[in-house]
């Protein structure tokens, strides 16, 4: 076994397999390192992803939903789409899975220091945003950043991820947590409306602010002009891309946009960077 072999997954134990959404299509997985050594070597930042492996089925890349300030575990929220995610959903707690990572770049948390941060998320793409929020809200770090505004939307209340945490964040005063669902629903007393409209309502100032946005393409498409209107420049907008990936190392060749490999050079890009790349994603 070659220690430097980037293709080898480290073993982790599935400690929690939790059905996150009402449609039952998204589960959240908490993984625990089997070897202490692996835990120490696994250094990551919000925005990075890892290849999650189900033995006998294969591996697939997922954004890391946990934050480095939640030691000992890795959290992933996975939608049931392919072979691996289907198998993951069926895994019993206590099973061994493989993890290869951390992979890719991260949200520029260092550069964000001293700035206000707006986080916009939609649907189940909230995973690395959760990681980011957790990271920013860490008491040792919170002081480094300015105002934090989060707008998170889903089609209906049942499809919101991390419902308990959302509640908790809403109750805090060091973060402006805005949760919205597309249309009014029974029992939902919160805000309704699509994310772009809500962002417009919330109207965060672009002054000394960076916006991290992650969600379905249509949400991004319609939120961009809103942000522009609010005065955000492409340099102030940070996005995370999704592409079909295999190696995660910038070698296998499928996730490139122009000369950039999303897996290695991304997945985090500023809108400015993306504008320079071909529109092929």
């Amino acid at each position, binding site marked *: 076994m070659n220690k430097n072999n980037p*293709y080898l997954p480290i073993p982790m134990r599935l400690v929690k397999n939790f059905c996150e959404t009402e449609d039952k299509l998204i589960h959240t997985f908490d993984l625990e390192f089997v070897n202490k050594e692996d835990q120490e070597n696994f250094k990551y930042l919000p925005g990075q992803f890892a290849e999650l492996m189900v033995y*006998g089925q294969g591996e697939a890349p997922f954004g890391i939903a946990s934050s480095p300030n939640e030691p000992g575990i890795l959290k992933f929220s996975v939608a049931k*789409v392919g072979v691996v*995610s289907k198998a993951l959903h069926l895994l019993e707690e206590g099973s*061994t899975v493989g993890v290869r990572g951390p992979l890719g770049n991260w949200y520029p948390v260092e550069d964000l220091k001293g700035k206000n941060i707006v986080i916009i998320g939609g649907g189940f793409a909230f995973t690395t945003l959760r990681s980011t929020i957790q990271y920013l809200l860490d008491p040792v770090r919170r002081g480094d950043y300015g105002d934090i505004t989060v707008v998170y939307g889903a089609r209906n209340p049942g499809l919101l991820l991390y419902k308990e945490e959302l509640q908790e964040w809403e109750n805090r005063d060091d973060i402006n947590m805005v949760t919205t669902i597309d249309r009014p629903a029974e029992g939902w007393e919160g805000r309704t409306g699509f994310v772009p409209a809500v962002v417009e309502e919330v109207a965060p100032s672009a002054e000394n602010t960076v916006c991290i946005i992650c969600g379905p393409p249509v949400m991004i498409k319609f939120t961009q002009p809103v942000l522009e209107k609010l005065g955000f420049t492409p340099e102030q907008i940070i996005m995370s891309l999704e592409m*079909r990936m295999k190696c995660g190392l910038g*070698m296998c060749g499928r996730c490139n946009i*122009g000369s950039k490999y999303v897996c290695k050079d991304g997945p985090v890009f500023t809108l400015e960077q993306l504008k320079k790349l071909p529109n*092929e994603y």
Partner: protein
Amino acid sequence: MIINKSEIAGLLDNLVKEYRVYAPVQKDGIVTFEQINEGTQAKPGATSKKPPKEILFPQSEELFNYQVDSQGLRMEDKIDDTKSVAFGVRPCDAKSMMLLDNVFHNDEYEDVYYTTRRKNTLIISVGCNQPASTCFCTSVGSSPFDTDGSDVLLTDIGDSYLAEAITEQGKEFLCKLNLPASDDQAKTKAEETKKQAQLTSEVDTTGIKEKLDDMFDHPYWESLYEKCLGCGACTYLCPTCHCFDIADEAKDCAGCRVRNWDSCMFPLFTLHGSGHNPRTSGKERWRQRAMHKFNYFVERYNASACVGCGRCIKNCPVNLDIRQVIADIKAQDTGSEVS
């Protein structure tokens, strides 16, 4: 140094005892690079149908195997560090290996499967006295006697080869062989041979990278792909194409992870689990192929990902000629329609 052609087989027989030796082998009308057991199998000077990149980067390779059961997890990787010699590689193919080095050992990660083989494989190339009509290496910064990527370069001077060590490893290797030193006559002959090796085919690639910088949305791509069947013959037979797929082959919880060549010409290559495909049609796929070779790769590694071997030209089922593509790109007007 000089190697007499009649001694090649004997020499290879000796090498086989110490190394794993690959050489061009003619089988059933097709030349392929294969491991040989005896010298007479080799056919130096022949150009293989499939490029020798597969020596370092096999079409299918087991990365590791594993088993999960009540006793826990067992895993074993299979990194091949056998000392090997690739004998009779074409200079263009040797050059391609140098290009692949960039890919498999980037600033962050090292593909130990490739690099271990690479480190342990000596490349002995044979220059091209008579380049084929489809060869255009000189157009893409190479030549019939290019030394890039080779440890030893052989030049066919009639009854014998002139052997030149290109690298330190090459030098050491040649020393061990105890070959007669080359005389001036041989050297002169070699020089002449090199000079005489003329390419009949040329295509102007100057400025193609810059041209392509502005061509992503160019209508040219609309018609380029039209006759393309979307097969992988061009990419699989290309010495520099290196895209691969990773898949698990398993039964229950025991299996192995396999890497297989993949091709940007296949629709599934970029298909997302959601059904979204950033490269929906042949248009996007052909653009990717052209761009990757002559723009993206250049941008990343400062070299075109084409060595001009002509395999894709010869083997395309519909005669879609990359030289024509290059010429067409060059001929396109990019002044106005760039968005």
